[in-house]
């Protein structure tokens, strides 16, 4: 593994040198955004703008000035150049190249050695690792389906549970090998227990496999057709999962009711939920949907952080379908990730569901080293609500109108 890393670093240096020789511009990715920003508030900035423009002495801020527009104008342009949300929906950019052409933005012929190395990498990945992985994946899935169906025929009881647990675990572990996922688990003493809800940040469907290979969970999700549907039906026979029809997902009360029922039954497994609702590229955590936090059960937060050096696990669902995505996963070097089990949290008396959700989100973000964002992951597909715009407008109006009233009084 370490040799691979050394090779990557050498490859990047070689490319930079080659580029300088040919006087081409290399693209250097920045994770923190491309423009220099000052984090000042609306009020401060507008006051400063007015102060620098006006020659009159200001005891209190005046009403509207023509220059106020500069603040909004510049803020708007800054977001066009670089905003916090859009870049979370495309894969993270790496500082050094990892010999996969898909992550290389400057793919051009630099040197023979580099090309040979890259060719070698392709050969290893496609001809050696890929068939191995596909075989393993196939074995894993078929074992899962067959195993759970067989277990389903047994009468309910401890033996069934025992067997079901082991069948599940074994199959997930095979799938993990199929992807060559190198996982480090931290704090396993905090693993979720029965009657609780496990929440984690969502980067790809592989998250499920990673978590389920180390613990025994009840899944929540939509009923799919095709291969996924077969797997889902088989799994339900062995132990109770919560699968929804597509139409039911829209009815939030129904969903909440079923989850509550499941949670209150102490013999049932902890539920695994991804409250972001969509796949985010693992550099940040976006707004959690409050539904799972309203139920009132103990929440076990889990932070999952992938190391993109060996293979980026992010699923850009608007760009790749499931099969393409799996193929890409299997042709990367490996999937390296760390899983942190955080201590359980419960909702406090004076917190509402949204605040609780934010508290959990911050804990996960802090542990995983991710940026904590307040934006909704749904922005991937929809536009933002107008309520946020009103807040900005309220702030500004207070500035200009509040003082107008003072004036008319005096």
């Amino acid at each position, binding site marked *: 593994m370490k040799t691979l890393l050394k090779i990557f670093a050498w490859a990047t240096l070689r490319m930079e040198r080659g580029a300088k020789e040919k006087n*081409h*511009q*290399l*693209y250097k990715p920045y994770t923190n955004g*491309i*423009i*220099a920003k000052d984090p000042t508030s609306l009020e401060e900035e507008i006051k400063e*703008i007015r102060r*620098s*423009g*006006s020659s009159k002495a200001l005891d209190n801020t005046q*009403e*509207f*000035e*023509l220059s*106020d*527009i*500069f*603040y*909004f*104008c*510049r803020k*708007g*342009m*800054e977001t*066009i*150049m670089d*905003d*916090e*949300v*859009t870049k979370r929906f*495309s*894969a993270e*950019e790496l500082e050094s190249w990892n010999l996969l052409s*898909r*992550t*290389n*933005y*400057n*793919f*051009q012929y630099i040197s023979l050695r580099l090309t040979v190395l890259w060719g070698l990498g392709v050969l290893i990945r496609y001809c050696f690792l890929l068939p191995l992985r596909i075989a393993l994946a196939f074995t894993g899935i078929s074992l899962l389906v067959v195993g759970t169906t067989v277990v389903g025929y047994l009468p309910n009881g401890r033996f069934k549970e025992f067997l079901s647990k082991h069948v599940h675990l074994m199959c997930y572990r095979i799938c993990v090998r199929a992807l060559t996922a190198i996982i480090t688990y931290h704090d396993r003493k905090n693993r979720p227990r029965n009657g609780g809800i496990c929440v984690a940040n969502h980067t790809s469907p592989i998250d499920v496999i990673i978590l389920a290979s180390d613990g025994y969970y009840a899944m929540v999700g939509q009923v799919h057709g095709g291969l996924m549907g077969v797997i889902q039906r088989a799994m339900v026979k062995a132990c109770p999962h919560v699968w929804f029809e597509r139409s039911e997902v829209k009815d939030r009360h129904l969903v909440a009711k079923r989850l509550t029922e499941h949670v209150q039954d102490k013999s049932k497994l902890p539920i695994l939920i991804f409250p972001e609702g969509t796949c985010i590229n693992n550099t940040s955590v976006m707004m959690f949907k409050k539904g799972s936090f309203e139920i009132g059960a103990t929440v076990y937060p889990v932070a999952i952080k992938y190391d993109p050096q060996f293979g*980026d696990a992010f699923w850009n669902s*608007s*760009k790749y379908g499931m099969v393409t995505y799996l193929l890409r996963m299997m042709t990367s070097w490996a999937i390296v990730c760390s899983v942190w089990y955080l201590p359980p949290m419960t909702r406090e008396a004076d917190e509402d569901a949204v605040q609780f959700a934010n508290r959990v989100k911050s804990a996960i973000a802090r542990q995983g080293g991710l940026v904590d964002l307040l934006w909704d992951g749904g*922005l991937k597909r929809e*536009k*933002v609500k107008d309520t*946020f*715009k*009103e*807040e*900005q*407008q*309220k702030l*500004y*109006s*207070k500035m*200009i*109108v509040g003082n*107008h009233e003072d004036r008319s009084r005096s």
Partner: protein
Amino acid sequence: MGSGSSHTATIPDLDDIRRETGFSQASLLRLYRRFRTLDQNKKGYLSRTDLEQIGALAVNPLGDRIIDSFFPDGNLKVDFAGFVRVLAHFRPIEEEDTGNQDPKEPEPLNSRMNKLRFAFQLYDLDRDGKISRQEMLQVLRLMVGVQVTEEQLESITDRTVQEADEDGDGAVSFHEFAKSLEKMNIEQKMSIRILK
């Protein structure tokens, strides 16, 4: 994923754009990447919906006006050259720009006058060269939403127009606009620095 190479050879008309806007090659590369990220269906140009998708822009009270500035004269698309041309107004002013100013060359896009002109155009919707009382009212209404009553807004507008209006025609021309802002540090307030 970063599919496709976006090195300098793929940017069309790179040298022309560089001369016109004054951006460095590195900055242009970054902006080109940004252009491609915003261009969701890989059309090769941006439409209004692409810009409206940016969450932080949609909550900006002047978001629509700013988007309008990219689509002058009723255009529905903006290509990379047009995109960068607008952003060039916000390039910080460096010493080289003001030092050797060749009088035959047109003013650089990020000169103080051009920055002011850009802001002026956010007010002046019908492009007649004057901000009428009505146009001022519209912009104010955008910035405060429903938080302020009509009368308050009108009195604020009247006062502002009166203060800036010198020739008494009830509207603010570009010259009056520039004059009322002559002490302002426009260079700093209307500049965005791109990291190297």
